[in-house]
């Protein structure tokens, strides 16, 4: 569920706005660490920590996005990656607060979320609410403008749209929901680790979106479910599950360049035309 939410938030940027970020995990990590530090170190209640996660997600994505959206394509991608590494370095260096390389474990959560079932239903509820909101955003006039910017930024500017503002808004919304996903993951695992900022995690989330189809809303949902299932299943049978995943990536790129849902969408549109 957490992966579904995180992939959906990422796809708002990549799939709907055409902004390939390599640093979206910064917000996942910030959400996770904000919740963990506030509840474990500052001993604040979970509700206040969650509210703080929303604020941190919004402000951090606004700050980072302000600089990143001024650039496009590969420059944008590497700038987001650089910011993510900066956040990683800061979290790593603040050992007393974040546990540095060891991360934070035994993060306290509200009693109702302490059990796996309680946490599951809470995460399910939040994920569905976020999914609904993201769906509304995607189908709104704002969402249509994001699609236009992805498709032809030059024509969008000649339609009087100040595309930098819309790109920034897309970045902030994606970061905001990404930080929620991070906090939910901490609630589920009761821990926070530096790996959350890693490029490996970023690549997996990108793969989720590509697998399902970046130009569809539900593509990342399908992609995340398949990736998580593959991870669990393959892990039981082989130590080389990552290699099998790699083969899957190659096959998907060759057989379904627009992703699974993208493939069916194209078939449907082809039949209509």
């Amino acid at each position, binding site marked *: 569920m957490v992966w579904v939410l995180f992939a959906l938030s990422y796809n708002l940027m990549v799939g709907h706005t055409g902004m390939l970020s390599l640093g979206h995990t910064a917000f996942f990590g910030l959400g996770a660490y904000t919740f963990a530090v506030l509840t474990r170190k500052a001993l604040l209640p979970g509700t206040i920590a969650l509210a703080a996660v929303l604020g941190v997600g919004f402000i951090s994505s606004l700050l980072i996005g302000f600089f990143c959206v001024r650039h496009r394509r590969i420059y944008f991608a590497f700038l987001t990656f650089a910011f993510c590494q900066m956040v990683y370095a800061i979290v790593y260096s603040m050992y007393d607060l974040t546990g540095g390389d060891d991360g934070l474990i035994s993060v306290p959560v509200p009693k109702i979320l302490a059990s796996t079932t309680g946490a599951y239903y809470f995460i399910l509820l939040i994920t569905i609410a976020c999914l609904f909101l993201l769906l*509304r955003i995607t189908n709104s006039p*704002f969402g*249509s403008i994001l*699609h236009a910017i992805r*498709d032809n930024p030059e*024509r969008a500017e000649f339609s009087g749209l100040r595309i930098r503002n819309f790109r920034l*808004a897309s970045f902030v919304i994606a970061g905001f929901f990404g930080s929620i996903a991070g906090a939910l993951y901490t609630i589920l695992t009761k821990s926070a680790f530096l790996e959350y900022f890693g490029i490996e995690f970023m690549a997996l989330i990108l793969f989720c979106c590509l697998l399902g189809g970046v130009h569809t809303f539900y593509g990342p949902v399908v992609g995340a479910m398949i990736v998580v299932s593959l991870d669990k299943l393959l892990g039981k049978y082989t130590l080389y599950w990552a290699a099998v995943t790699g083969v899957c990536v190659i096959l998907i790129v060759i057989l379904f360049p627009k992703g699974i849902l993208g493939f069916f969408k194209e078939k449907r549109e082809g039949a209509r035309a």
Partner: protein
Amino acid sequence: MGIILRTESLSKSFGGLKAIDRVDLFVEEGELRSVIGSNGAGKTTLFNLITGYFRSDSGKIIWRDREITSLPVPEVTCLGIARVFQRTNTFLNLTVWENVMLPFLRVYKQGWNLLTPVRRLNQRDVEELVEEVGLSEQFDRIASTLSHGHQRRLELAIALANRPALLLLDEPTAGMSVSECTEMMSLLMRLNQKRGLTILLTEHDMKVVFSVSQKITVLHFGRIIADGSPDEIRNNEEVQRVYLGESE
């Protein structure tokens, strides 16, 4: 009718090449003016300067008594200057109605609406405009699947959805068949005469230019060498020598 757009000593160079050289252009409200000239004369550069796509090296662009020389593209569009490109420039992966609806979102200040389903907005405006350019039957088709002629019409519809006072068309009939070309030009004349839309266009087809234009400006190596009615241009010796003589 007053002057809606004027340029004062407008210049633009690329390296050592003077693409636009001290151009003083006057466009009256409601007129249909053509800018002609051979390849490399500076027609597209002039459009790029007016729309804010290029920054000029010197000179001014005045729109309704307001200087717009250094304004970026979206600001210029919002003031009422829309453009159709030489190469078709639409949102290829979006449907016809999405293409036309997008500028309306800006015009009606709905772009920051994050929650209302877009399907319910501006339907009537979009339908009217799509019908006006003759694309009603293509309403739900993806733009990339349209024929070249229909894509040119779609781009015109996008430009018109911006509710412009001045429409810049860079070779609107390029790549069209004779019948498509005739339909396009009669559509432009209708827009000019019925809506009072000011049109500034570049075109290589001299038959088209002389049949539809009220005024013609001739560019040669970035400089205006003649400006006047079609008859005045036709009888201008310098124009005959450097341009019409070649093309006829």
